[in-house]
């Protein structure tokens, strides 16, 4: 999407104004300068009103029409509020216009009453202008409302976007823009449809089959319910862990407890590392037992066999001297080993004669020796297995000892902290905080146990489902309806399985891609010891390197705000890359999006403003920035000016004179000295 021109009529303080946006080429930045209260946020709202009929005003939220226009009119007079936008999208030109008709109802009516609202979208794909049948849907497909706050970005929302509690929006945005939502929804809906076809199978099936399907469904419902419990428990555990994190941050901020808390954090990190090593050893033990665990059990039998075989070879029971002289003795005795006569000239005689040579003697001898050799090798395998297991167990014991040492150190610090009586600014003592921490740690541990129990039940029920599925598969049915329904159910399941694999695959790719992009963008803006990461759950995590440990940074810090801007910019950039790339994907086509940002630099300090303004224009083809003079002057202007294609100034008249009303004109030149 590329914005071309915005035209406003009687929209709040804009009576008849137009903005042409810079687009194409190197200078894709449009700046709208305006003091606080002059109408910058109103311009942002003009976009959201046109696209989604949605506005968010701090003052007089219900008044859309220009105040002076209604005030000066006679009762019964009608007025039109209109926002018109010309833009281009995927090779077509568009004109979208929303109009609202208002009527003045009385002398004291300054808001007017809404009579009618109309939205039109016209498209020119190269063969002339045509109206779109479903204009709201057309606009929503170009920029979905759920993503609108990323592209029509309010600087005041940055706290919200950056907040740790608002991660769902970030998750949803990434998934939506990257095509994951389509796949996730498609698999969910195919599952529901497969269920409908299964209903049909059940309706048309034999009683026995119907009972089996019923049973399977009950179990599937039980698994669903367990999965819900699991996810609730997990969420609750994460919430408590977050609270523990908050307590630990409080302890780190208090001079008396800071050093102790930091040390405890280090010990806990070390303990976690040791526990991971124990887990690796456990995995190695399991693998050893799986691969070679049979050896010790079979060893006595193998040893006996090797010894017996060798003894038999030595005793000549295995004919180790089956050689030419032995065959000659048979031929001269004219009797075969099987007792049949061997008369010269007969076929049997010739067969035995033909056996003369070294191969047989060598073959039998060699094979016997080779088997004995193999059996002895198993013996070596047994020794290796014992050595490897003993080594792993000894290493595990050492690690357990080290973990016990860390636990002791952690306990000592905990005891010290539990005795401290100093208090935080909010009046909580270190003792209290420690007590809360301890109780929350216990809760986390209970949750972990509960998660283990739930997981076990899920696995058990899933095994039972598999066994019932096998029973269903073994059924046969003569009724055509049941067979067709079953085939349709299977088709839905197969496509669902295929899309699930595609989802997981794309999810991995998207995570890598967004991580790489956010890391790059954030890395070029933020301090060196900070890093931004999109987690496996698609949450934005900002960490700081403190003494070699990665610690998640506090809420509402400048760094989180920068990260949010970096995140928005990165998404737009990834979508653009995807759109421009030649790779063919059915569900991830990307797109070109503009960034319309109201006061994006307001909350940042000067050095960060400079870096953000350097990066943002490189991420989107088109950027529209609304800023006060104080936000713009200095580093932002220095960085962005070379990219600016158009500038406008909001000339605001507060309408304090007799008979005057608030009004803003959009000027191409600065009228008077601007300000905040």
């Amino acid at each position, binding site marked *: 999407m590329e914005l071309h021109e915005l035209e406003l009529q009687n929209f709040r303080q804009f009576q008849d104004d137009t903005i042409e946006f810079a687009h194409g080429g190197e200078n894709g930045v449009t700046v709208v300068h305006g003091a606080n209260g002059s109408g910058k946020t109103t311009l942002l709202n003009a976009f959201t009103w046109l696209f989604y009929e949605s506005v968010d005003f701090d003052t007089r939220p219900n008044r859309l029409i220009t105040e002076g226009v209604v005030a000066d009119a006679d009762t019964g007079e009608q007025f039109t509020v209109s926002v018109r936008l010309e833009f281009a999208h995927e090779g077509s030109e568009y004109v979208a216009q929303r109009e609202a008709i208002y009527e003045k109802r009385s002398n004291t009516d300054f808001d007017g009453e809404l009579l009618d609202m109309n939205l039109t979208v016209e498209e020119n794909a190269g063969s002339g202008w045509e109206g779109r049948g479903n204009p709201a849907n057309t606009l929503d497909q170009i920029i979905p409302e759920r993503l609108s706050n990323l592209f029509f970005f309010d600087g005041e929302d940055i706290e919200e976007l950056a907040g740790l509690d608002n991660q769902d929006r970030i998750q949803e945005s990434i998934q939506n823009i990257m095509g994951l939502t389509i*796949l996730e929804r498609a698999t969910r809906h195919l599952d529901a449809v497969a269920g409908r076809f299964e209903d049909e199978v059940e309706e048309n099936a034999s009683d026995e089959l119907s009972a089996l399907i019923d049973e399977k469904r009950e179990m599937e419902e039980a698994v669903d319910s367990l999965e819900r419990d699991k996810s609730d428990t997990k969420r609750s555990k994460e919430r408590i862990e977050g609270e523990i994190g908050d307590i630990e941050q409080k302890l780190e901020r208090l001079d008396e407890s800071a050093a102790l808390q930091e040390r405890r954090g280090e010990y806990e990190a070390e303990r976690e590392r040791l526990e991971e090593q124990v887990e690796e050893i456990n995995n190695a033990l399991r693998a050893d037992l799986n691969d070679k665990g049979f050896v010790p059990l079979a060893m006595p039998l193998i040893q006996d066999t090797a010894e017996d075989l060798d003894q038999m070879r030595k005793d000549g029971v295995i004919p180790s001297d089956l050689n030419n002289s032995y065959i000659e003795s048979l031929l001269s005795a004219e009797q075969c080993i099987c007792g049949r006569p061997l008369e010269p000239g007969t076929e049997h005689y010739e067969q035995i004669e033909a056996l003369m040579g070294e191969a047989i003697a060598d073959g039998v001898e060699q094979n016997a020796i080779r088997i004995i050799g193999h059996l002895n090798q198993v013996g070596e395998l047994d020794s290796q297995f014992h050595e490897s297991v003993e080594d792993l167990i000894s290493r595990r014991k050492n690690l357990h000892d080290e973990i016990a040492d860390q636990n002791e150190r952690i306990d000592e610090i905990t005891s010290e902290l539990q005795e401290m009586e100093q208090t935080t600014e909010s009046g909580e003592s270190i003792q209290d905080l420690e007590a809360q921490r301890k109780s929350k740690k216990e809760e986390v541990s209970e949750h972990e146990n509960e998660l283990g129990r739930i997981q076990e039940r899920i696995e058990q029920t899933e095994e039972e489902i598999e066994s019932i599925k096998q029973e269903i598969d073994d059924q046969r049915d003569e009724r055509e309806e049941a067979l067709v329904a079953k085939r349709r159910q299977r088709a839905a399941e197969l496509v669902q399985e295929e899309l699930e694999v595609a989802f997981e695959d794309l999810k991995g790719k998207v995570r890598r891609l967004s991580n790489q992009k956010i890391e790059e963008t954030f890395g070029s803006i933020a301090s060196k010891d900070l890093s931004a990461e999109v987690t496996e759950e698609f949450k934005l995590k900002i960490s700081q390197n403190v003494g070699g440990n990665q610690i998640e940074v506090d809420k509402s810090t400048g760094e989180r705000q920068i990260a949010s801007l970096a995140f928005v910019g990165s998404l737009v950039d990834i979508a653009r890359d995807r759109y421009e790339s030649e790779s063919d994907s059915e569900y991830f086509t990307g797109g070109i999006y503009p960034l319309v940002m109201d006061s994006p630099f307001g909350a940042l300090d000067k050095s960060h403003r400079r870096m953000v303004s350097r990066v943002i224009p490189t991420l989107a083809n088109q950027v529209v920035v609304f800023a006060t003079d104080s936000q713009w002057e200095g580093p932002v202007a220095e960085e962005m000016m070379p990219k600016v294609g158009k500038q406008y100034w909001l000339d605001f008249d507060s309408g304090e004179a007799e008979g005057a009303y608030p009004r803003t004109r959009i000027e191409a030149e600065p009228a008077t000295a601007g300000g905040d």
Partner: protein
Amino acid sequence: MSSGPTSNRSLDDADIEFDEETLRRIRERVLSAEKEKLNLDTPHGINNEIEETIREEVE
């Protein structure tokens, strides 16, 4: 349009086979329907559309 092996009376998943083309068509039609409704929080009627698609493709 495709159909499974009609002479086979088995309900065993392993015995039910489809050609790649049928599954590809279903997949494309499902994704296209989802894309159409991606902008909606609750894509009403999507399950009916998918069900109809599969009925048409598997007879």
